[in-house]
């Protein structure tokens, strides 16, 4: 009993802030449960009636995750302030996504009555083959998403474990259970509204985090001076010197370019981001989101992407020697060193928000893909049962994720990145072609999907892992280019398979 009271005394602020946050997201899920249950369109895409600021913040919080706030922030400890180049590429891809895909996707999916990315492929290309594309893409989502979810839960559970001192499995169970509950209750309504709140928290936490090393040292100038020439060792044990503030000294630009392009390309083809466009309510909202989403993302990335380099100013040489090999622990180290319960509590709640916002989005994607695009296409779901089945799918998939999280594969980060490459290479040409190229065909979509996936696998296992000179060229880049070329060539060669003129005119009007 005494130990429990001591524990409460030590962690009360963290417990209050985190419990308050979790209670809020659960309340939002519960609040929307009746509205979400009013029909498939409501549960899947919130009836396309969500204001622009909510979708904008939801897109931002889905685009970034714990990987950004912990993993990428920590990378700068190893690679210096130049790591922000990766953030620049992400910001550019976010803008491209909203400019090129946002308005068209919203309009075309409404015209087609599409609720998911796979059914968009089916209705857009309108044939028996496009029905196969729908099924195939849903299966890709079901398999590729699992590793992403395990990676997110693993990262967030480690934060839980380190700040609360509770077992890792408890953290995983609590995070999955809370996220699953509000997603199952409120469907897309609760996912978007909780994402928006999580987006606000993440934006504030990004600014707060970058202030920590500055306040700790006593000013931005003093901090830059401290990290400008340091005796801390780099990954090979040599003194970093001015490497943290000098371009290209701690890593090659090719490596930064590869990671930046890989993640950026992945993000613009990820169903969890694309489906955000479906729910926006009107022109004013669309314009708002097109302007403000890059603002939320860009400013957060400015704060977060170079953070690790700044933490050198807070670390001793011994601590830096450890952190350079364990960059995922840099943010945790920074919070522990700053040792301010309120600041730590707010940051931890923000890190949970970062993980849960991405997790909820993919939970819904998985549930809708299985029921709407696998069951509906193969065995037909009884009328009125779609929402019930979707809810159960989310619950069962969450249990599977939990089991994998207890013993995650050693290379989970690589698996997550690889699944992202599969999404980008196999989905983007069919989506972009569907939105812009009237002459795009169902066969073009199917072959580009298959060839994108094959190219990603071949490049990774036959070339990238075998030849040192190619290790910095992520599989997403050749696979993306190859699948786009296949889409164009096959569509031009099978022009006779274009949907009827009336259908295309309706879509492109």
């Amino acid at each position, binding site marked *: 009993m005494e130990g429990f009271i001591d524990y409460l005394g030590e962690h009360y602020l963290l417990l209050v802030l985190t419990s308050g946050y979790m209670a809020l997201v659960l309340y939002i899920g519960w609040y929307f449960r009746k509205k979400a249950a009013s029909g498939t369109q409501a549960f899947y895409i919130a009836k396309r009636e969500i204001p622009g600021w909510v979708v904008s913040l939801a897109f931002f919080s889905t685009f970034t995750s714990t990987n950004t706030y912990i993993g990428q922030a920590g990378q700068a400890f190893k690679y210096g302030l130049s790591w922000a180049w990766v953030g620049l590429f992400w910001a550019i891809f976010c*803008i491209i996504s909203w400019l090129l895909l946002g308005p068209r996707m919203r309009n075309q999916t409404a015209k087609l009555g599409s609720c998911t990315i796979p059914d968009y492929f089916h209705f857009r290309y309108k044939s028996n083959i496009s029905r196969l594309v729908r099924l195939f893409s849903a299966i890709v989502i079901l398999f590729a998403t699992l590793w992403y979810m395990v990676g997110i839960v693993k990262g967030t559970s480690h934060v839980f474990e380190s700040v609360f001192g509770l077992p890792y499995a408890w953290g995983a169970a609590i995070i999955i259970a809370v996220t699953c509950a509000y997603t199952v209750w409120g469907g897309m309504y609760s996912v978007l509204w909780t994402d928006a709140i999580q987006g606000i928290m993440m934006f504030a936490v990004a600014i707060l985090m970058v202030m920590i090393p500055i306040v700790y040292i006593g000013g931005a100038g003093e901090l830059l001076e401290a990290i400008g020439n340091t005796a801390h060792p780099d990954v090979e044990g040599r003194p970093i010197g001015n490497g943290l503030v000098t371009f290209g000294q701690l890593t090659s630009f090719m490596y930064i370019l590869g990671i930046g392009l890989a993640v950026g390309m992945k993000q613009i083809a990820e169903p969890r981001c694309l489906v955000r466009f479906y729910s926006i309510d009107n022109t004013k909202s669309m314009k708002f989101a097109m302007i403000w989403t890059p603002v939320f993302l860009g400013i957060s990335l400015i704060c977060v992407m170079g953070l690790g380099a700044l933490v050198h100013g807070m670390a001793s040489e011994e601590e830096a020697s450890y952190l350079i090999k364990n960059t995922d622990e840099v943010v945790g180290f920074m919070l522990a060193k700053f040792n301010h319960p309120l600041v730590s509590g707010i940051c931890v709640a923000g890190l949970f928000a970062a993980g849960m916002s991405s997790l909820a989005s993919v939970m819904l994607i998985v549930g809708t893909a299985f029921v709407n695009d696998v069951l509906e296409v193969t065995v037909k779901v009884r009328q009125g049962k779609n929402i019930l089945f979707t809810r159960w799918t989310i619950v069962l998939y969450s249990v599977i994720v939990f089991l994998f999280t207890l013993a995650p594969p050693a290379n989970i980060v690589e698996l997550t990145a690889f699944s992202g490459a599969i999404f980008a290479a196999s989905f983007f040409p069919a989506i972009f072609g569907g939105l812009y190229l009237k002459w795009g065909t169902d066969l073009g979509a199917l072959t580009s999907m298959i060839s994108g996936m094959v190219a990603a696998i071949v490049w990774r296992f036959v070339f990238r892992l075998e030849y040192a000179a190619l290790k910095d060229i992520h599989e997403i880049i050749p696979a993306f280019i190859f699948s786009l070329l296949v889409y164009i060539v096959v569509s031009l060669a099978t022009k006779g398979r274009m949907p009827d003129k009336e259908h295309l005119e309706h879509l492109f009007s």
Partner: protein
Amino acid sequence: MDFLTAFPYWAIIVIIVLNAWLVSRMDVHINEDEED
């Protein structure tokens, strides 16, 4: 900090502003009354 290290920080600000300027001049239209 050298020019290329500082570049991404201010470049993000520049592209955000350029994007806002571009979108404010773009003709965006969302069909609110479209049949689902």
